[in-house]
């Protein structure tokens, strides 16, 4: 019952923001951040990691499902592996007050590296992945982060190799810090 109430409270808080566009004054700053993210996505470390991810997951990860992924703890070694590889270290190097979250996906939408464990194991079919895989930049609506309670906007850019998108890099930007 209380869980339901909490959910309702959160829904009431989030619904007014759902689909709400960015303030016109903030958009140029988001655009500037997108350019930075594109530069990150073009980094050889990122490209190499996506190429490795595109080669196929290994071990338990090859059979990873969404439910299984959701049950895994953040401190699970399998999950921690995605936060300690070369691409994750690169992303950590770019972390700032503005960049609240970031994850790198292979062409099939499965994860290659991330700062924090994302909710979904695979983003295939999601606009934040499909748009970059189409060679486009994607910008999501303003939403509230569950853990921090702060407004953020997600942007994604393609990871390009040989002129073709091979994966996507999603970055969550904190609006309050952008301001």
């Amino acid at each position, binding site marked *: 019952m209380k869980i339901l109430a*909490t959910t309702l409270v959160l829904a009431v808080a989030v619904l007014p923001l759902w689909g709400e566009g960015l303030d016109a004054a903030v958009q140029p700053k988001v655009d500037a951040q997108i350019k930075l993210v594109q530069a990150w996505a073009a980094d050889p470390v990122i490209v190499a990691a996506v190429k490795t991810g595109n080669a196929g997951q290994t071990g338990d990860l090859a059979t990873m499902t969404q439910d299984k992924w959701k049950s895994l*703890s*953040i*401190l699970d070694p399998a999950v921690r592996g995605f*936060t300690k590889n070369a691409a994750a270290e690169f992303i950590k190097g770019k972390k700032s007050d503005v960049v609240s979250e970031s994850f790198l996906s292979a062409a099939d939408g499965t994860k290659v590296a991330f700062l924090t464990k994302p909710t979904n194991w695979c983003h295939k079919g999601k606009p934040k992945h499909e748009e970059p895989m189409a060679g486009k930049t994607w910008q999501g609506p303003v939403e509230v982060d*569950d853990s921090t309670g702060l407004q953020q906007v997600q942007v994604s850019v393609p990871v390009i190799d040989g002129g073709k998108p091979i994966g996507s890099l999603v970055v969550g930007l904190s609006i309050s810090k952008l301001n």
Partner: protein
Amino acid sequence: MKQLSISRRLMLLLGAFGLMTALAVAGFTLLLRQSTARSTAVTAQAMSQQGLSYQILEAMAENHGRVQQLLGLKDPDELEAAVKALEAGQKKTLDLLASDRAAFAQVQVKYETLRGAEHSVIEEVLRGNAAQAREKFFEVAAKDYEACMTRLHEERKAMEAATTTVLASHSAEARRKLLTQSGGLSVVMACLLMFGWRLKAQIVRVLSTASATVAATSDQISDSAKHFAASSQSLAEEASHQAASLEETSASLEEISAMTKRNAENAEHGKDLGTQARQSATAGLGNLNEMTRTLKTIKAAVNELQAAVGEMQSSSQEISKIIKTIDEIAFQTNLLALNAAVEAARAGESGAGFAVVADEVRALAQRSAQAARDTSEKIEASVKRNELGGVASAKVVTSLAEVQGTASSLEQVFQGIAAQIKSLDELIAEIATASKEQSQGISEVNITVSQMDKVTQSNAASAEENASAAEELNSQAVTLHDIVAQLQQVVTGQAAATGHPGATIAPQITKHAPVKVSRPPQPSQSRKPKSGVPAVTAAPGFAKLPQNLDLPLPEPVGQGHRGSTHF
């Protein structure tokens, strides 16, 4: 049976009191120590448990804070570190609870529940279920934490109550022991007080007798001080008079000394003058001899002059004869010329020439006669003068003889004067020597007078010191009397009223100003009480007596027991 003296009895009483006091102090101290040790142990245990409870509370609060902090973390590294810190904090909490299982058993049960809830929250956080984690934290873990804190608080209250109960029982036991000890001590103290009461009665009796004796003695001291003061005053006055006489004597001696010195100087001067006079007499004697020799020479010369005068007289007579002859010739010539003139007149003119010649011759004859008469007169005058010269020479010779005689007498006189001057010189020398000796003697007398003056000064100072000492003695006698009165009051409890025995002495003692003598003061090796009142040092026994006793003085008590108060 040998009786103990009062001092020994007092010492015995004091010793008994001291011993009892020491025993009481030791007993009370032991009791206090035991009570304190037990209370300290109980308090220490309570404090330890309290400290432990606060540590547990702190650890639980830290853990709860860490869990709450975990809710806001997303970074896996930060989450991993936070989870590790939380696990360490939980382990520490468990260790703290395990350190006193008996006291915190209920708290430990509650904490296990809390730990499970915190674990559940962490699992939700690690799975990324932030909303569920937050819900579990606030709905479950927070309540378990509250229950844990409440239980811990109750446990602490229970511990405080138990400690208070134990301390109260210890306090009651200590009070019982204290009362027991105090009762025993009171009995012993009562015995000692009875002994002290008897001793006090004896001491009062003895002190009454002693105070009466001391009062009488103080009266005697006061009388003696009075006589002493009078004698000292008289002595000071006599010394003052003596000093004044010495001052006059000294002044006279100084005058005599000055006169003697002047005499000696005059004698020296007279000696010099005598020497000069002797030298002058000797010189005069020499001159007299020289004059005598000169007189002899003059006498010889006068004799020769007399002879010359005689020869001149005879020559004058011969010249006078010659002049008479010339005068006769001139007379004859005149006569002849006169005859010739008569004859020439007779001759007339032929004889005119002749007449002129006859006149001339006659004139010449007259002139010769005149010259002869003049010469004769001159010669006669010269003869007369020669005669006078001879008379004078004779007189001179006579006078020379007289002068020679006088010179001879004068020589004798000069010799006598020289001899007398020599004697006078010797006498003056003796006078000078005597004056020097006299001056030395006067100087010695002066020194002696100076020493006598010092002694007199010293005597005067001593007299003044004695007077001050007498005054001090009198003051101390008064003080002694006051002490006796105080002692009597202490002994009898009644204030005795009387006048101070020596109160009238002080005005009789007159402080004499130091005797001043005109000469500069000689440095003294002894006391120097010249200025002001001489310092008087009180006797050691009186030095520490109270000076201001506002107690009524007792009536002097008659002669009592003298000597030792040994009973």
